[in-house]
C-alpha cells in the first residue's frame, strides 16, 4: 500500500491527496518494530522494515531528520498535541500513540485526518495531506516522535546534530516546489 520509502521522493502532496479518503478501520494496533538503522541514504536512516528511523549517537548527536522533526513538530503539531509530544487537554500524547501505532498508520492519520465528535468532547485531527509544511517533513516528524516514544530522546531541543546533507536540501526544495 504505502511505499516504505520516503513519500517526499514521489511528490508527497499529489500522492497524499489520493490517499486521503482511506479509512482507518483496517488498522492493527502494533508498534513499528526494531528502530535500529540498517541503511543510511545520504543522512536519512531506515530500519530493517524500510521505515524511517532515528540515529542517535552515544554523545547525544542526533541525525538531521530527528532535529528537523523536532522543529516541524513544534511548529505544526504542538499547538494541539502539546510540547515534546507529551499531549494536552486537547489532543493525545503522540509519544504514547506511537507505542501502538506503526509508520503506515501514523502517515494515514496525518494525511487523512480523523474525526471523533460528539459526547461533549469534540476531537478532530485535521488532514494535512495538502500542507507542504507538514507533508515535506512527515518522515522527519515521525522519526522525531519515534525517538521520543522509545525514550531515545529527552524533552528538550536536541543539543547536537548531524549536518543537513546536500541531497536532503535538494529533496526538500523539490518537495516545496521552490
Amino acid at each position: 500500500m504505502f511505499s516504505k520509502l520516503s513519500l517526499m521522493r514521489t511528490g508527497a502532496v499529489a500522492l497524499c491527496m489520493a490517499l486521503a479518503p482511506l479509512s482507518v478501520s483496517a488498522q492493527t494496533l502494533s508498534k513499528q518494530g526494531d528502530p535500529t538503522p540498517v541503511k543510511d541514504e545520504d543522512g536519512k536512516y531506515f530500519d530493517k522494515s524500510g521505515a524511517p528511523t532515528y540515529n542517535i549517537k552515544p554523545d547525544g548527536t542526533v541525525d538531521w531528520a530527528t532535529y528537523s522533526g523536532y522543529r516541524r513538530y513544534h511548529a505544526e503539531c504542538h499547538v494541539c498535541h502539546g510540547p515534546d509530544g507529551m499531549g494536552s487537554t486537547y489532543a493525545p500524547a503522540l509519544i504514547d500513540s506511537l507505542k501502538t501505532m506503526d509508520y503506515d498508520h501514523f502517515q494515514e492519520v496525518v494525511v487523512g485526518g480523523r474525526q471523533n465528535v460528539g459526547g461533549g468532547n469534540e476531537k478532530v485531527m485535521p488532514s494535512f495531506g495538502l500542507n507542504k509544511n507538514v507533508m515535506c517533513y512527515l518522515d522527519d516528524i515521525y522519526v522525531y516522535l519515534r525517538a521520543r516514544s522509545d525514550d531515545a530522546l529527552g524533552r528538550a531541543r536536541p543539543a547536537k546534530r548531524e549536518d543537513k546533507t546536500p541531497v536532503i536540501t535538494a529533496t526538500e526544495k523539490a518537495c516545496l516546489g521552490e
Partner: protein
Amino acid sequence: MRRLLTVTAVAACSAFFSAPVMANDGVQKLTEDPSQWVLQTGDYANTRHSKLKQIDTENVGKLQVAWTFSTGVLRGHEGSPLVVGDVMYVHTPFPNIVYALDLNDEGRIIWKYEPKQDPNVIPVMCCDTVNRGLAYADGKVFLHQADTKVVALDAKTGKVLWSAVNGDPKKGETNTATVMPVKDKLLVGISGGEYGVRCHLTAYDMNTGKQIWRAYSMGPDDEILFDPEKTMSLGKPVGKDSSLKTWQGDQWKIGGGCTWGWYSYDPKTNTVYYGSGNPSTWNPAQRPGDNKWSMTIFARDPDSGMAKWVYQMTPHDQWDYDGINEMILVDQEFDGKMRPMLVHFDRNGFAYTLDRKTGELLLAEKYDPAVNWATKVDMDKNSPTFGRPLVVEKYSTEHNGEDVNTTGICPAALGTKDQQPASFSPQTGLFYVPTNHVCMDYEPFHVSYTPGQPYVGATLSMFPAPNSHGGMGNFIAWDARKGKIVWTKPEQFSVWSGALSTDGGVVFYGTLEGYLKAVDAKTGKELYRFKTPSGIIGNVMTYTHKGKQYVAVLSGVGGWAGIGLAAGLTDPNAGLGAVGGYSALSSYTALGGQLSVFTLPQ
C-alpha cells in the same frame, strides 16, 4: 462576495422590529445596575468591577457553593455567564450551546440553543475550541459561533431572530471572541492569524443582521477606514497608505492582525476601542517592514467605522505578541491632571496608559520584571523612535535570523498576559491583572502559504521565568498612574482567568488547578479558596438574585493554557529530564465543563 445574511431569517423577523433605537441606552443602563451582568466585560469601559458589597473582606471566607450546572461539554470554557433579570445565559465552547436558566426555579433550563456546525471548523481554531461568551441588548442574546456565524437569539424563547456569516472557516477564518452591542450595531471580530487571514472588525445592524461597515487591520486606506489627514498616530496624521507602505509586495493580503480580543466603548466621545493581533507569518524574515496595523490599538467611530487614532505597540512583531487584550477606560489623575485614560496590559509585557481622546501615550512600563525583549518604550517625543519599543538585539528573532534559535526571551508568545481580562476598582484606583510568568526560545523558519492551512513559521518552546519563584504566573495589582506593581501574588500556573473586583474590597480570580480565589484588594492577602471540578480559564462574574449576592465562574480546563501546560514545561537550561512532576497541570485537573455559583450561607 460574502453572503451576509440568511435571507429567510431576516424576512421572517424584520416585521417584529420597530424603528431602530438611537443609542443603546438599554445596555448602558443595564450595566449600571450591579444586580445584572449583561456584557462579558461587565460594562462598556471593560472595568469588570461590581458595586455589590454584600460579600466583603470580612465574610468572603464563609462563601459556599449555592448551585452548580454541568454544560455537557468538555473543552476549554472561557468567558462567563450573563444575568439579565431573573435569567442566566450560559454558553459553551464548540458546539457553542446556549442555555437560558431560570434563577427563580433553581436553574431549570428555559431554553437551549445548539447550532449545527461543520466539525471541520474544530481543528482550524488554533489552540482549542473556546468561546468567550454572549452579549445582551434589546431583548436579544448575541452569539458569535466558531464557524463565524453571528446569531441573534430572542432572549425569551431562544428563537433565531437573524444570523449573518462573518467569515469562511475553509480559509482559516474562525471565531472565539464575544461581540459588542453599541447603539444600533453589533461589533464583531474574527480569528485566523495562524492561517494568513487578513482580519477585520465588522459592524452589523443589531435588528436585521445587515452588514454596515467592515474595517480591515491592514490594506488600502478605504479598506482599513482611515482618513490620511484625520486619523492620528502619536500626535500626527497617519498620511496616505499608512498600512501598505509598511509591507513588502502582497504579503499584507495574508497579513493577520486578527481582532479576537475584547471591545470597549466610550459613550461620551462615541468611540470604540480594540486591539489587533500578530502579523502573519511568525517568521519575521518573510514580512519586512512595520506590518501596520497589526499589534495596534484602534479608536474608531462606531457609526462609520472610521479610525480616530491608532497606536502600534509592537512594530514588525518577531515574538507573536498579539495586541488584542482588553482596553480599560478609566478617568484618573495623571501628573496632577484628570485624564480620560485607556489602560492596556499587552502581551508584549508592557502596560500602556494613553489619553483615550487623543491617543497620546502617557506611560508604558513593564508589568513583569522578567520582560527582557525590549529595554523600554521610547517616551521622548523628539526622538525618531518615539513610541517604539527599544528592542534588545540578543532577543530579536529578526536580527538573529531564520533557522537560528533565539533563547531566553521573556515573555513567551502567550504574553505576560493573554486575553484573560483584568479588572479596575475605583475604590482602590488599582488594576488587578492575571499574568503569565513564562519565557521562551523561538526559532523562525521559512513556510509556504496554502489557503486554509496553518501558516506559522516558527518553532517555540516555553519554560517558567528563570531566577524567579519557579511558578508560571502571578496575580498583580497595578497602578496605571505611576506604572508600578503594588503587590504580587505568585501562582504555580499561569493565571488564565478574568478578574472581578467588587465594592466589598474583594478581588476574585480562578486558577488553572481549578481554585476560585478571593483576595483582599488592598493587600493581595488570600481570603478564600475553593477547588472547582476542573481548571478555570473562565472569567468571574457577580450578580444578585432576590437581594442576595452571588459569584459565578465557569470551570473547564483547556485553551492555550491547557495545551501548553498540561504536560508541564521544561527549562532547557536546567538540563535534560529536569521536568518536575509538579509542573504538569495534568496532575492537578482534568477536562470538565461546569458552572459553579457561590454565595454566603443564610
